[in-house]
């Protein structure tokens, strides 16, 4: 950064100081504002103390002159000492000012740097930089993706509809209605669960962490959650007591289904464990401690697509389990099974509310 510095050419009046380049310090610095004043100031000081020098006198000579007799009577060494002290004070003042201005300049540069970083980060939708408060970043309900708000509303409706269907199914079973009516309720019940899987697929794309956390469910349901929903093997365990009596063929098929369901679940669980490990390694694997972990975030974002795939795969397994069990059962068993399943989830939700509202 080049700037012009004032070059002060010592006037003839300062001739006795020719060995000292008073303005030398200012030659390389940027104190444009201060120089003229300093010049005037020192000139003034010189004027006060050096009234003995006349325009005619050649440099280097201090000699008495009739006009300035009253000044010449002051001892010369005292005057010289005084002038030297002034020089020294002025020099120190200039150095202090120079240091201060240099500090300001580097702060200005740092501020420009930080502002640029901030602008860049804002464009990328994230914060970075060592001086920003990272504790401000975090999940906030008001920062929900619009897809999540939609999902929450739709899920609320889904639960209401689920409750309505459960009571309709209960009434239909207890009033011993015909097969056709029961088939209708079983079909709507199954479709209702499949609707939920479709809603969840959209929500997973919006915010997969939200979906996987189970925050959209009651706390009891969340406790039993597996990859963003109920365990298929758990579903079969809940249904089984209510399907009795089962024929031998049905027993065999249900047994096989339970085994293959468990095996598929275990395989997906192992895949999830591996993905979790990879995600942790990605987030912690870069340079930490320097206030900029954008590279880790970028690398992790690519891996989150895999998480979405896992949630979809788990829902696919749930869907297949429901379809297979309905294939094995007759219509009465299927209706009883669906009712049991619906009441099981209602029970979990009720458990959550009761526990939360119990007197402390």
């Amino acid at each position, binding site marked *: 950064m080049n700037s012009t510095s004032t070059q002060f050419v010592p006037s003839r009046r300062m001739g006795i100081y020719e060995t000292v380049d008073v303005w030398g310090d200012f030659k390389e610095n940027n104190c444009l504002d201060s120089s003229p004043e300093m010049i005037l100031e020192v000139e003034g000081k010189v004027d006060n103390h050096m009234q003995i020098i006349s325009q005619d006198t050649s440099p280097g000579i201090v000699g008495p002159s009739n006009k300035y007799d009253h000044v010449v009577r002051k001892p010369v060494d005292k005057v010289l000492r005084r002038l030297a002290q002034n020089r020294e004070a002025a020099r120190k003042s200039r150095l202090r000012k120079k240091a201060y201005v240099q500090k300001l300049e580097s702060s200005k540069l740092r501020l420009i740097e930080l502002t640029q970083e901030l602008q860049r980060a804002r464009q990328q939708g994230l914060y970075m930089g060592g001086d920003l408060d990272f504790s401000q970043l975090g999940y906030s309900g008001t920062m929900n993706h619009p897809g999540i708000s939609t999902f929450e509303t739709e899920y609320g409706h889904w639960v209401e509809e689920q409750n309505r269907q459960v009571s309709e199914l209960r009434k239909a079973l207890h009033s011993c209605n015909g097969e056709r009516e029961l088939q209708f309720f079983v079909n709507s019940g199954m479709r209702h669960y499949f609707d939920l899987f479709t809603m969840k697929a959209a929500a997973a794309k919006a915010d997969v962490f939200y979906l996987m956390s189970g925050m959209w469910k009651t706390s009891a349901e969340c406790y039993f959650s597996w990859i963003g929903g109920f365990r298929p093997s758990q579903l079969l365990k809940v249904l089984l007591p209510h399907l009795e009596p089962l024929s031998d063929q049905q027993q065999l*098929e249900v047994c*096989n*289904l339970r085994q*293959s*369901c468990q*095996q*598929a679940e*275990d*395989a*997906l669980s*192992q*895949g*999830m464990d*591996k*993905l979790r490990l*990879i995600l942790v390694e990605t987030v912690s694997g870069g340079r930490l401690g320097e206030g900029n972990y954008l590279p880790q975030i970028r690398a992790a974002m690519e891996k989150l697509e*895999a998480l979405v*795939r*896992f949630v979809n*795969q788990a829902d*696919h*397994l749930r869907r*297949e*389990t429901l379809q*297979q069990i309905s294939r094995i059962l007759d219509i009465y068993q299927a209706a009883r099974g669906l009712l049991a399943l619906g009441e099981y989830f209602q029970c979990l939700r009720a458990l959550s509310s009761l526990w939360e509202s119990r007197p402390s």
Partner: protein
Amino acid sequence: MEKVRKLTSEKGVMIFSKSTCCLCYAVHMLFQELRIKPYVHEIDHDPDGKEIEKALSRMGCSGPLPAVFIGGELVGSTNEVMSLHLSGSLVQLLKPYQNLS
């Protein structure tokens, strides 16, 4: 694609996979549970990887990896494998290749 045809006809049970793909790993684990040792070909370590991927989608593999072949025939991706397994059909397909270690 010649390479794909050669590999799938030679190996009884075969999974086209990527070393970083965790769903591929899950399918591999499922086969191991069923006492099968599939041949896993990791296409991210294969210089012809991109070509193989294109060939697989041309052959009708619905989604991304894994792509599973049994007896030279394309079974499909994770969805197809899971559906077949729950219906009991997968074990039937794998019977000739079980316990081959």
